[in-house]
C-alpha cells in the first residue's frame, strides 16, 4: 500500500513538473498618458497580441521546456524620460524581468537602453528608429525598426520621379527621432538636385504652428516634409489645412500611420507617411503568421486595423521567441548569440541585426514603404501603399489639391 502510494505520488509529481510551465518575464513601459499615448498604445497592442497567441499555442519551447510569456510592469512611463529610467531599473531589480522591450519612441528608448546596458539585459527595440543609440558601444540592444536614415529616402526618390522641379521645406520636431530622419534627408535632397527653400525645427510640445507656417508661406515651397509624432503631426496638418497653405505634397512622420488620422477629415487627405509596414505588403513568411492573419487577428481583437507600430511590437515578440527557441535556453548570452545570428523573413519583412561593435543591433534587413491617405469611391479615407512602385496598391495622388 505504502509503495503504491509513494509511486502514485512520484508519478503525480513527474506529471506536474513536466507540464508545469515556467515563466519568461518581459518588461517594458507604455506611454499610457502623455504626448506619445496614441502611438505607444498601438505598439503595446502588438506586444499583447503576440503574447496571447504564443501562450495559447503552449508558450515558448526551449531546451525541452515550455515557457509561458508574462509581462511584468507595463507601467505607464507618462511619455517621460525620467520615469522610464526609474521604471526600467525597477523592472530589472525588483520585478525580475528576463528580457526587455523598449518603450515607444527613440528618446525614451535611448534612455531605457542606458539602464538595460548598465545591468546587462537584452532589450529588443520597436518604435525606435534613431540609429545613434546603437553606435554607443552596446552589447544587448536589437532594433526592429529600419533606422531613421531610411525614412525619407523613398519620399525623395518618389518625388524625383514625379516632379524633379519641386521646392522642398522641412518643418520637424527638434527631438532625436525627427532630427535623425531629417538631417540625412536634407543632404540627400540636395544631392539629388532639389532646392531646399526652408528648414526649421520646432521645440517638442509645440502646439501652435502659426508662426512657423507664416514663414513657410513666405518661402513658397511646393512640398513640405517633417513632423514628429502624433500630437504635433496632427496639429501641423490641421493648421496647414486651416491656413490653406498651397502645397502639392505633404509628408509627415509617424502620425499619419495611426488609424486615428482619418479623424482629421479633409486635413488628413493626401498626406504621405513613410511606413515600417502596411497590411498590403506581402512577404514570403519563414516564421510566424502571415500578414493577412496578423491583420485579421488584430482587427478582430481591437476593432481597428493595425498600424506599423503594432506590427513592430508583434515582430519584437516573434523575433525574441525564435531566438530563444534557437538558443534552446533563456540565458542572456545564448539568446544574444541567437539574435546576432538572426536573418529571417516574417510577416513584417526581413530582420537582420548588425553585429559590429560600433553599430551593434542596428537593423539592416528591413525596408520601408510609403503610404498615402486617399479618398476611395465612396469618399472614405483609406491608406494606400504608393511606393515602392513594385509593391504599390494605388498610384500617388499628386498634387493633393
Amino acid at each position, binding site marked *: 500500500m505504502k509503495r503504491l502510494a509513494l509511486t502514485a505520488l512520484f508519478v503525480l509529481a513527474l506529471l506536474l513538473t513536466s507540464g508545469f510551465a515556467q515563466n519568461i518575464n518581459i518588461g517594458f513601459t507604455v506611454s*499610457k498618458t*502623455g504626448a506619445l499615448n496614441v502611438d505607444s498604445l498601438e505598439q503595446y497592442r502588438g506586444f499583447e497580441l503576440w503574447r496571447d497567441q504564443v501562450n495559447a499555442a503552449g508558450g515558448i519551447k526551449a531546451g525541452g521546456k515550455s515557457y509561458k510569456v508574462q509581462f511584468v510592469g507595463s507601467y505607464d512611463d507618462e*511619455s517621460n524620460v525620467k520615469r522610464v529610467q526609474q521604471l526600467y531599473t525597477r523592472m530589472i531589480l525588483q520585478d525580475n524581468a528576463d528580457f526587455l522591450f523598449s518603450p515607444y519612441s527613440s528618446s525614451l528608448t535611448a534612455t531605457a537602453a542606458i539602464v538595460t546596458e548598465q545591468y546587462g539585459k537584452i532589450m529588443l527595440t520597436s518604435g525606435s528608429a534613431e540609429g545613434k543609440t546603437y553606435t554607443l558601444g552596446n552589447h544587448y540592444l536589437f532594433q526592429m525598426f529600419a533606422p531613421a536614415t531610411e525614412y525619407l529616402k523613398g519620399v525623395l526618390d518618389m518625388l524625383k520621379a514625379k516632379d524633379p522641379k519641386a521646392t522642398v521645406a522641412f518643418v520637424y520636431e527638434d527631438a532625436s527621432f525627427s532630427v535623425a530622419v531629417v538631417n540625412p534627408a536634407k543632404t540627400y535632397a540636395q544631392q539629388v538636385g532639389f532646392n531646399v527653400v526652408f528648414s526649421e525645427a*520646432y521645440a517638442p510640445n509645440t502646439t*501652435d504652428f*502659426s*508662426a*512657423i507656417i*507664416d514663414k513657410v508661406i513666405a518661402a513658397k515651397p511646393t512640398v513640405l516634409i517633417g513632423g514628429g509624432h502624433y500630437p504635433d503631426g496632427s*496639429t501641423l496638418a490641421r493648421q496647414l489645412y486651416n491656413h490653406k497653405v498651397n502645397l502639392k505634397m505633404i509628408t509627415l512622420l509617424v502620425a499619419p500611420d495611426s488609424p486615428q488620422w482619418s479623424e482629421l477629415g479633409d486635413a488628413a487627405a493626401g498626406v504621405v507617411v513613410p511606413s515600417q509596414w502596411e497590411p498590403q505588403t506581402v512577404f514570403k513568411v519563414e516564421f510566424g503568421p502571415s500578414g493577412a492573419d496578423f491583420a485579421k487577428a488584430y482587427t478582430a481583437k481591437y476593432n481597428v486595423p493595425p498600424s506599423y507600430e503594432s506590427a513592430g511590437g508583434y515582430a519584437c515578440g516573434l523575433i525574441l521567441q525564435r531566438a530563444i527557441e534557437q538558443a534552446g535556453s533563456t540565458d542572456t548570452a545564448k539568446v544574444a548569440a541567437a539574435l546576432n545570428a538572426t536573418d529571417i523573413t516574417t510577416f513584417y519583412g526581413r530582420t537582420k541585426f548588425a553585429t559590429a561593435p560600433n553599430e551593434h543591433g542596428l537593423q539592416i534587413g528591413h525596408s520601408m514603404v510609403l503610404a498615402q491617405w486617399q479618398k476611395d469611391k465612396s469618399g472614405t479615407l483609406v491608406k494606400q501603399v504608393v511606393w515602392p512602385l513594385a509593391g504599390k496598391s494605388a498610384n500617388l495622388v499628386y498634387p493633393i489639391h
Partner: protein
Amino acid sequence: MIDGLLIGSVYGLAAMGLSLIWGVMDVINLTHGAVIALGMFAMYLLFTALHLNAYLLLLPIIAMGLIFGTLVYWTSVHWVIDRPQLSSLLSTFAVNMIIIGAGTAIWSTSPYNVNFSLPGFTVGLYTFTGNHIAAASAAVIIALALELYLHRTRPGKAIRAVADNREAAELMGISSTTVLALAFAIGIALAAASGALVSTLFPFTILSGGVYQLKSFVVTVLAGLGKPLGALLAGILLGLLEGAVTPFIAVSWIPLIEFGLFVIVLVAFPKGIFARSAA
C-alpha cells in the same frame, strides 16, 4: 504680423486677470496658469457635452470662474493677505500645485482638443483663421467691458478705491474684504476666459497654462500693475514683438528673448515701464 496682433490680444486678456489682482491686493496669483488650463478644460467639457457655439459657452465659463475665484480667495488668500507678500506667493503656489495635481490625475498629460472652427478669411497667400479672429475680438470686448465696470459701476469704483488705499476706503465705509474677494474672483474669471478662448486654437493639457502664466508675467510687468487696459495693450505689443522677431530667427529662441526681456524690465523698471504716479 496680424497673427501677432490676434494672439497678442489673448495674451493681454490672460494678463489682465493677473494684473488686476496684483494691483488691487498686492498678491501675485500663482494659480493663474492653472486656472487658464482649467478654462481650457471647462470649454472642452461644455463643448463636448452641449455642442453649442464655443464662444457662447464663454459666459457660463466666466460665471464658473467667478465662483471658483471666490472659493480660492476664501481658502488661501484671505488668511495671508496681511502677511508679507511671500506668504501669499507660497499659498497661491500651493493651490496651483493642487490644481495641477488634480488635473493630471483626472485628465492625464495627453493632449485634448476642442474641435470647433469658424471660417477665416484670406488675404493673398495668408489666411487668418476664424478662431484666432474670434478669440482676439472676444478679448477686446471683455477688456472694454472690464474697463467700463471699473469706472462706471459702484463695485468697480470700490475696487479701484481699495486698490489706491485700503484704509481710506474702509474709512469711507467700503468693506474691503468683500471688495478684495470680488477683485480676486474677477481676476480668476478673466484667466479662465482666456483659457477657454485659447482652447479652440490648439491642443492643450493641464500643463499648457504654464506658458501663458509666464507670458502674463512679462505683460504685467511691462504694463504696470492694476491697469487692465494697459495689460491688453502690452499683450498686443508682446504678440507683435513675437510676430516681428520670428521671421528672422528660429521660433525656439522666443522664450529666451521674452524672459531675458522680463528680467531686464524687472531690474531696470521695478515698478513697471508705465509706473503709477501714486506709489
